[in-house]
């Protein structure tokens, strides 16, 4: 395998390996369904679309998470940013619902950015603190359950409806993806993210406003979490506590599986996409197989380790 890929750019190798592994998952899953039920739902477009719809929440969170990971930072405030955005959106309701949700994301991102860039508190702990503050605010706000927690029709439309037979959520995810890709590859902000992530000092001495870059990245992470929250609330028809918790670690995992360096500076957005799809498919195949929770966790963990080891052997890039 290493030989096969030797001529490929190191940062693309993980992406290819991950894509290959996606095919493996599909084949194994299909083999299973054929042998048990004699059908191959995994290969039906309808099924794939549904999986992508479910995947869009994780996908959007991961997209934002990637911005900060590229800086060598991390955003642990995602769970309650997501939840807060959803709860605020539903609480405000009406046409202002979605804007309110996104605003929440922007504000939290700004706070994170200020703490990390100006106060220079490690993002690991600062965002953790912000997360618990957000949780506190939401508990206080909701009294344990959302007073007005029903998603607005528009939120429902964005998350649950289909257009041309394709779930809207997928369009939203696609839009986010396009924007992120453009930002990363075609804008000075994007280039500055990579530069700052590799060596903040050198970037700073090149006259890059590293602090603004950091703040910008955290705001993107916040807003992505918010979009995911608004969608998820639309999908679940309501906002609820702990709706964000299941997305934090998988998002980080997806980004890293996509070949982004956890220390920052390297990574392509396509990789993150592939990483997300890999995780989503893995989970759904496991649940098709009726794998008990215990087995899922073990397999999930082993897959991540396994793949990182494969990447590692090919390239010295340690994920």
């Amino acid at each position: 395998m290493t030989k096969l890929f030797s001529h490929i750019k190191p940062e693309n190798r993980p992406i290819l390996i991950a894509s290959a592994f996606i095919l493996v998952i599909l084949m194994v899953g299909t083999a299973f369904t054929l042998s048990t039920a004699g059908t191959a739902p995994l290969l039906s477009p309808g099924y794939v679309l549904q999986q992508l719809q479910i995947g869009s929440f994780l996908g959007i969170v991961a997209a934002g998470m990637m911005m900060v990971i590229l800086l060598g930072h991390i955003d642990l405030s995602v769970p309650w940013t997501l939840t807060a955005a959803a709860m605020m959106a539903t609480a405000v309701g009406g046409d202002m619902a979605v804007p309110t949700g996104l605003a929440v994301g922007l504000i939290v991102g700004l706070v994170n950015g200020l703490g990390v860039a100006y106060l220079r508190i490690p993002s690991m702990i600062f965002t953790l603190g912000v997360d618990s503050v957000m949780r506190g605010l939401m508990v206080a706000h909701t009294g344990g359950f959302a007073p007005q927690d029903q998603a607005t029709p528009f939120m429902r439309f964005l998350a649950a409806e289909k257009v041309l037979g394709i779930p809207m959520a997928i369009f939203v995810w696609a839009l986010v993806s396009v924007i992120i890709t453009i930002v990363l590859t075609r804008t000075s902000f994007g280039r500055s993210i990579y530069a700052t992530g590799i060596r903040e000092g050198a970037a700073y001495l090149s006259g890059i406003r590293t602090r603004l870059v950091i703040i910008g990245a955290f705001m993107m992470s916040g807003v992505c979490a918010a979009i995911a929250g608004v969608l998820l609330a639309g999908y679940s028809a309501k906002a609820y506590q702990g709706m964000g918790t299941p997305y934090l670690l998988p998002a980080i995992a997806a980004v890293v599986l996509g070949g982004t360096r956890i220390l920052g500076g390297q990574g392509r957005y396509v990789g993150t996409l592939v990483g997300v799809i890999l995780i989503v498919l893995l989970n759904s195949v496991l649940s098709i197989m009726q794998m008990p929770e215990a087995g899922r966790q073990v397999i999930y963990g082993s897959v991540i380790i396994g793949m990182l080891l494969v990447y590692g052997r090919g390239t010295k890039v340690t994920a």
Partner: protein
Amino acid sequence: GPETVSGPGVEPECFAPWSGDTKYMQWEAKDGPYKLAVVNGFVGNGWRIQMIKTAKAFAEDPAMKDKISEFKVVSTGTDAAVQLGAIEDFINQGYDAIVTIAVAPDGFDRVIRLADKNNVVLVPFDNVLDTDKVMQVNEDQLEMGHKWAQFVLDQLHEKGVKSGKILEVRGLPGNSVDRDRSIGINKVFEDDGGDWEIVQVVGNWDDGTTQKVVADAIAVHGQFEAVVGQGGSNGVIQALKDAGHPWVPVAGESENGFRKAIAQYSGDGLKGISIGQSPGLVAVAMKAAVSALEGNVMPQLISVPLPVATYDELKDGENYWSDLPDNFFTVNEFPPCGVNISGPAIMAQDESDVN
């Protein structure tokens, strides 16, 4: 600690013994008024909020008011170490009785021993403990499971369905009611002749989570013959609707929204059964605690009957309210115990005084 004595106990219509061989307990009488604490674990679903509101309201109830000198409610979250700590702390603070929803069915040996040492009455309810060393209050969870599954099976048999996928929506992992209900449900399906594939998802007793996991399950598995779900039933309905999943028999709890739905769509195949785990149990538990402090003979395991309503038994304005919001639990009162705080009444109060 309490003495094991022989029955009968006081107010049997309220404190009904679980079964014939339920033993009886008696604490030496203390004179009131009493310091009473409610130690809740998990927060974050409508049921617990309604439970807490009921507790506060009941503490203000004339029947109780002058018997209680101090009343405190805390929610510790799902960390056992913290919940045990809170209970022990209230014992240390000299509270007379502590009513609790346990985050796990065992692990309370130590606090039970302490409670007995200090003559504190500890009353688990809802999620009770696997022990007969304390007085507990609950509905029969195993039976709830049986009834749910049996109803669904009968409906399927009527339709002539003998096999297929059944979706079971579970509650918060690790709690006794979730466990017992699931055991009950699965037992019934095993004993039935048909070949049923039970698909389990975890809805944490919460509408939003339930909706999400049910929708995902439908996305993965396609069709289900029926759904048997614990708290969060509104989410089940919502998910079926969104996915355009044909209406099938559904078993669930007593959320108003759920009852609205099964009342409305039963014609289209949504044949439903609603069994209410009543948030009002907290009131019964409080009352039991006080009665025990007064030195009365109490059953060790107090059984509150299952409030069952099938789709054909629903009456608007009586056991569900088409004009009220979805997310409250219709069954709350228990007149035999003088718990007359109804679901609509308690939800009418504004949230701010939930503490």
